[in-house]
């Protein structure tokens, strides 16, 4: 392709921005080159995102591994909704869905209230240096993996050596089998989730707060507004968008749970089964231990419900505040 033609194409593209609607621009060299640039990532998306999306139909099959994937896929028998029938015949599934939803509801509420409050409060500290130090310290758990967190928790809760039991003993009380006490785990898991997430949330909200024009506060202060009033009428309204964004992102994932938190931290303890099993843990355990049928059915429900919730949440936000919507 000669230089002249290329220049013409470029010129056309510049003008093209103003061209009337409906008239199609022709495919040019630019498009070819951009397509080539996007090709590797598109292939990645195809293999790692879209192929599994079609693979989801194994929920309607009696999937047996029989050589390579495609062969097993074709030779597996269609069983309609049998997998789902079996799944809902177990009483576990209701308990698991209940666990997943109720943990997530608590996480979403506390996951907004606590970091927003912390971000507003930390911004009020007189010493900016101390503020930085606290913020850095509280951000750290976000960078630790759940496996590491499991080891940290173990150091506190282990029966024979754990710090908590050592303290109890030194106060003349009995050692406790923490990993066998279902009643303490729901609040503890909520605590761990906050422990790991507050620093992160605080940083996100703090970035929004520092972006607010200082003159608003000055004007309000001169007019005699208290700090409370300033928070209520300036900070919170200006944080609305980011809070709504975080909210839909979390509501959209209400059928998903943090596998590490629910599987690793309780160390897969059998006595805690009733209180720590969520959909992700269930799907993983079923996949590892028994038939794929129920596991695939549960994963299917999770994907579908997740899709519906995220689209609904997004739709609601569009109605309320168009600018905050994700799509």
């Amino acid at each position, binding site marked *: 392709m000669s230089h002249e033609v*290329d220049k013409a194409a*470029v010129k056309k593209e510049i003008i093209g921005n103003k061209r009337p609607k409906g008239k199609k621009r022709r495919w040019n060299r*630019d*498009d070819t080159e*951009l*397509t080539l*640039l996007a090709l*590797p*990532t*598109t292939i990645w*998306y195809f*293999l*790692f*995102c879209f192929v599994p*999306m079609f693979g989801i139909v*194994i929920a309607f099959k009696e999937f047996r*591994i029989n050589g390579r*994937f495609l062969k097993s896929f074709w030779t597996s028998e269609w069983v309609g909704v049998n997998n789902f029938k079996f799944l809902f015949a177990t009483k576990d599934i209701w308990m698991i869905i209940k666990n997943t939803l109720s943990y997530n509801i608590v996480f979403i509420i506390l996951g907004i209230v606590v970091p927003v409050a*912390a971000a507003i409060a*930390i911004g*009020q500290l007189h*010493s900016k240096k*101390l503020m930085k130090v*606290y913020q850095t*310290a*509280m*951000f*750290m*758990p976000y*960078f*630790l*993996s759940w*496996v*590491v967190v499991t*080891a*940290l928790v*173990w*150091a*506190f809760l282990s029966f024979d050596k754990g*710090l908590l*039991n*050592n303290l109890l003993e030194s106060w003349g009380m009995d050692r406790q089998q923490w990993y066998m006490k279902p009643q303490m785990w729901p609040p503890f898991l909520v605590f761990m989730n906050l*422990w790991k997430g507050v620093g992160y949330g605080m*940083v996100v909200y703090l970035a*929004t707060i520092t972006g607010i024009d200082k003159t608003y506060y*000055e004007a309000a202060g001169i007019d005699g507004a208290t*700090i409370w009033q300033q928070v209520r009428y300036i900070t919170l309204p200006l944080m609305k968008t980011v809070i709504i*964004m975080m909210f839909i992102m979390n509501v959209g994932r209400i059928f998903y749970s943090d596998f590490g938190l629910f599987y*690793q931290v309780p*160390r*897969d303890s059998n006595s805690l089964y009733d209180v720590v099993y969520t959909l992700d843990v269930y799907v993983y355990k079923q996949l590892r231990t028994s038939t*794929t049928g129920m*596991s*695939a059915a549960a*994963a299917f429900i999770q*994907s579908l419900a*997740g899709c519906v919730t*995220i689209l609904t949440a997004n739709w609601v936000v569009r109605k309320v505040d168009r600018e905050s919507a*994700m*799509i």
Partner: protein
Amino acid sequence: MGRQRPGQGQIRIKGKKEPDGFERFNRVSKPANVVLNIVFFIMAMACIIPVVLVVAISFSAEESIQEYGYHFIPKIFSLEGYTFLVSQSKMIVRALGVSLLVTIAGTVLGVILTTLMGYVLSRPGYKLNGFLTMVVFIPMVFNGGLVSTYFVNSQLLGLKNTLWALILPLCVSSFNVVICRTFFKSTVPESLIESAKMDGASQFTIFSRIVMPISLPVLATIGLFLCFSYWNDWYQSMLYMEDSKLYSLQALLNAILTNIQMLAKNAATMGLGAAEMLAKMPQEAARMAIVVIIVAPIACAYPFFQKYFISGLTVGAVKG
């Protein structure tokens, strides 16, 4: 801004530490400040203390742990946890090597794939823009679920028991692509690209010679996100690694947490019997020493990289 309010600017320059009169007036009272400081001090300590405890355990002698349990101050100080790991260097070094390799390779590959897609999507007037936007957006809303993903990765793509299983599934995320697209759209001037095009530069040249060099902040942000997620990943190993030779540090720790005998099993191949080894080795200290090896680089690095994380997190919240 400074021009509009010259008075304030001057005061700031004069006394940097003391805010000006008005700012002093418009802030929480001294007692409230003290209370807030105490609250945040406690919260900060709650985040740090577990790590301190684990470090303390890793420096404790085995017999003191067996007798007194875990404590913040080692009853008997000892390096035996670490010397044991050094004596098992084959296993530890291999795991460290896997972790490093996966982290570096994954980060490089991920940054390339993410920025390429982000750049292409940021081009206005590109013919397939709508299609590729869908390619990126649909996975944010819908996914195949664990079972299907697992079978596709292990059976169809044959990633099981290969290092690719640790690298490929994590290297692109739509979230990062959107961050890149937003960045390119907002910071790379359109005229720069147009003028390069006038000079006959191909899109590849524009991308690698012009866009990349001026986009270092977003590269750093994406790179850091990826770096931490690869270093911290244990889930992929748990799913796809049956061969303990290919365990990363996280996978090794995971295996040891569930079964401390793993360490002994490896030691047993060195001549000692497994039971004898298990009795002799500093189990507790060694286990926590692995935690320290994993956490130390993160704890040292993240305070310096925090600002890139923050910029990424906030850019991500702005839709493009």
